[in-house]
């Protein structure tokens, strides 16, 4: 009997020949990600549980991103809690202002294909872009992992999503994942793994795959995974070993559902307020005036996203009285975008480029809105009240769509 990618990763991790959906197994954790919002709570639980050392300090990565730069005096308490915890237990991988956790985990080489990784943030699903099994957990479970190195998981069923053909020029992987979430529904993949395959997926950059793995959680998925290929190897700076090369869903693997799409059928879309699965094509929404555009987040704040936005905005200006906020996903992305001229183009068009971090996506600063305002944003959630008051309308879109909207001051389709 064949296996899905996730089944292969979990089986190898627990040293079993194979596993099947529904099995409850104890994994040995390869890496954990702790973020700034959760660190004081993780530390408290860790102490309350009575642990005195971290099972493998080098496997822990502590990242400040939600609260960088500080916007409330209390934010500093979280940095201090992080410093104290890292010092006491010997965590050396600490990123204090280098960007968003999910960007850094793969970009800085902490996650490799086939790894089992947990993080205290729901978008930990992102690392499936390099063929890892990764998912978000709460701070209590994180504390338990830090003490024991283990976590139980129920082997998920897998939904296979095949996208063949070629995507149109004005369609980005964001449009693809939004459409899929719309089709699955916000709970359509709950407890399950998404496995992506097909010619269009193979052609995608690791960054584009990241966008899709990142948003799998918005369909309720436990994780999402792509087969590692040469692009993955290059991105991770490794040569794939046999196990990693074999992270392909077997032909005779058991999938609970298979969805097949043709790349050519995709169009630019948006998730409308206030559900991520309320998907409409951009053409249906054209003309709606907007107040702000946000390009950034762990979903769409990477180099290719900023380059795309710069391409759309080259020689244009942001519409009068409209704000464009650009928040690169990491320090490296910022520097690369500066080196290639994308930052210059964006700033000349009128963008405010902020320091890398979660920014507006997590709703604590970075462009908060008020009653009656409408924002087009490239991040992952448009929940009620996420970017200010509950009377703010959030439309999620690709960077190409977002940039086009910024120039027009209203919702429009991008022409690439």
């Amino acid at each position, binding site marked *: 009997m064949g296996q899905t990618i996730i089944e292969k990763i979990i089986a190898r991790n627990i040293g079993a020949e194979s596993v099947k959906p529904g099995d409850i197994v104890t994994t040995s954790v390869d890496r954990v990600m702790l973020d700034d919002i959760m660190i004081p709570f993780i530390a408290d639980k860790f102490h309350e549980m009575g642990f005195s050392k971290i099972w493998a300090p080098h496997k822990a990565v502590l990242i400040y991103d939600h609260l*960088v*730069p*500080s*916007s*409330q*005096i*209390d*934010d*500093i*308490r979280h*940095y*201090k809690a992080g*410093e104290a915890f890292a010092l006491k237990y010997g965590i050396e991988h*600490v990123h*204090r*202002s280098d960007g968003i956790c999910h960007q850094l985990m793969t970009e800085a080489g902490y996650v490799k294909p086939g790894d089992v990784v947990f993080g205290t943030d729901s978008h930990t699903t992102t690392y499936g872009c390099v063929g890892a099994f990764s998912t978000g957990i709460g701070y209590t479970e994180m504390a338990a992992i830090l003490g024991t190195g283990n976590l139980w998981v129920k082997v998920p069923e897998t939904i296979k999503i095949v996208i063949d053909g070629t995507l149109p020029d004005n369609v980005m992987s964001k449009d693809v994942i939004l459409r899929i979430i719309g089709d699955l529904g916000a709970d359509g993949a709950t407890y399950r793994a998404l496995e992506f395959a097909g010619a269009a997926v193979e052609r995608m950059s690791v960054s584009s795959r990241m966008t899709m793995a990142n948003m799998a959680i918005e369909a309720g998925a436990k994780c999402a995974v792509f087969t590692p290929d040469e692009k993955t190897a290059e991105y991770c700076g490794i040569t794939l070993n046999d196990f990693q090369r074999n992270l392909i869903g077997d032909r005779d693997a058991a999938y609970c559902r298979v969805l097949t799409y043709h790349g050519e059928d995709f169009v630019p879309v948006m998730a409308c307020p206030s559900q991520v699965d309320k998907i409409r094509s951009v053409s249906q929404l054209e003309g709606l005036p907007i*107040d702000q555009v946000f390009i950034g987040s762990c979903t769409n704040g990477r180099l290719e996203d900023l380059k795309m936005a710069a391409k759309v905005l080259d020689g244009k200006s942001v519409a009068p*009285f409209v*704000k464009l*906020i650009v928040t690169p996903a990491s*320090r490296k992305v*910022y*520097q690369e975008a*500066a*080196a290639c001229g994308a*930052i*210059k183009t964006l*700033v*000349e068009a009128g963008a*405010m*480029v*902020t*320091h890398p971090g979660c920014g*507006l996506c997590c709703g*604590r*600063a*970075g*462009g*908060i*809105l*008020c*009653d*009656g*305002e409408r924002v087009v944003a490239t991040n992952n959630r448009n929940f009620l009240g996420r970017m*200010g*008051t509950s009377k703010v309308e959030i439309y999620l879109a690709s960077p190409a769509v977002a940039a086009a909207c910024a120039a027009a001051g209203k919702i429009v389709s991008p022409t690439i």
Partner: protein
Amino acid sequence: MGMTIAEKIIALAAGVPEVKAGDIHTVNLDRMMSNDGTTHLTVDMYHNRLKDPKIADPKKMVFIVDHNVPSDSPKTAAAQKKMRDFAKEHGIDFWEGKGVCHQIMMEHYVCPGELIFGADSHTCTYGALGAFGTGVGCTDLLYGMVTGTSWVLVPETIKFNLTGKLPEGVYPRDLMLTIIGEISASGASYQVMEFCGDGAKTLTVDDRMVLCNLAVEAGAKTAVFEADEIALDWLKERGRKPKAVFKSDEDAVYVKEYTFDLSKIEPVAARPDFVDDVVPAKEVCGVRIDQAFLGSCNNGRIGDLRVGASIVKGRKISDHVRFLVVPASRQVYLQALKEGLIDIFMESGAIVMNPNCSVCWGSCQGVIGENEVLISTGTRNFKGRAGHPSSKVYLGSAATVAASAVKGEICTADMLKD
């Protein structure tokens, strides 16, 4: 009888041949600037307190969103929206996210000889171009907005005769802090600080902005330099023409005169919680810091970023320090980007923010926590200004701030080991 520059500007604005200190005059305002700190209050008063509100001349108004940029709460967002909607409705020049208000005013509006009100205390900055800029509250601004006029009490002028040239590694900020330390935080209350002398000729317009900007920290109503060739060239490069170019008369009356020899100035720092508690920077070396801030309308210009970048280049910011680098405007940012300074800062581990007031204003991104210590190129070090009431702020030059960020404790640039 002779007049000072400030008196001449007021006389022109009042349409009278002569004014003297102590007179009260009605003046025509050349321009009014209001930022997101208070504009929403002015707009509220405009709508709720006036019978038949109208704006005398929208072309004289400039609205600038710079204090909380991008917006960090529904409350600031609502205040900014009110401002944006009002500007849109009345055809007022509106700037958002493009820089700190005084920097934008200098880059795009201020001309020698103008009388300008700004609803912000550091409006005195405009004296760098030989204009009379002064900070007012929102009631004064509202009156100016609807009438185009206001009244001013002609201030006395103090003369600051500058001689010599600043030594290498010493900056206008050290000079101005030294002056404030000497004359005290109330040393120029209600008065004008006029800077002149050979030393003034060694200062660029950007340098002069540093001096004028901090004048309010000595209590001054404003500060002013003569619009000399340096200023006029600067203006010309930006395609603007002066309203009037004034020199103080030989027999002008000064209430007091000081002389400062620039060559004797050394790096200094203002200790918490007073701008006039100024000591040689060496005296505060070794104080452990949590954050360093390079930016503000006082010290966030290209020259300041060049100084900062030259110090952090090839070095790493101390692990326990958050080093905020905040260009004063989009122009400054783009220039810094072009020169590779942004990359140097990013490489060093600094936090490079979009142009805004940042922690100098203290109620926005960059706030510091309980018992934390900040060394800053901002304008003020008042108790609790940068965040938690127990936090402390030291003021120093861009060089001292950048060097301290690397070392993790206050130090001067010459103390950094390679």
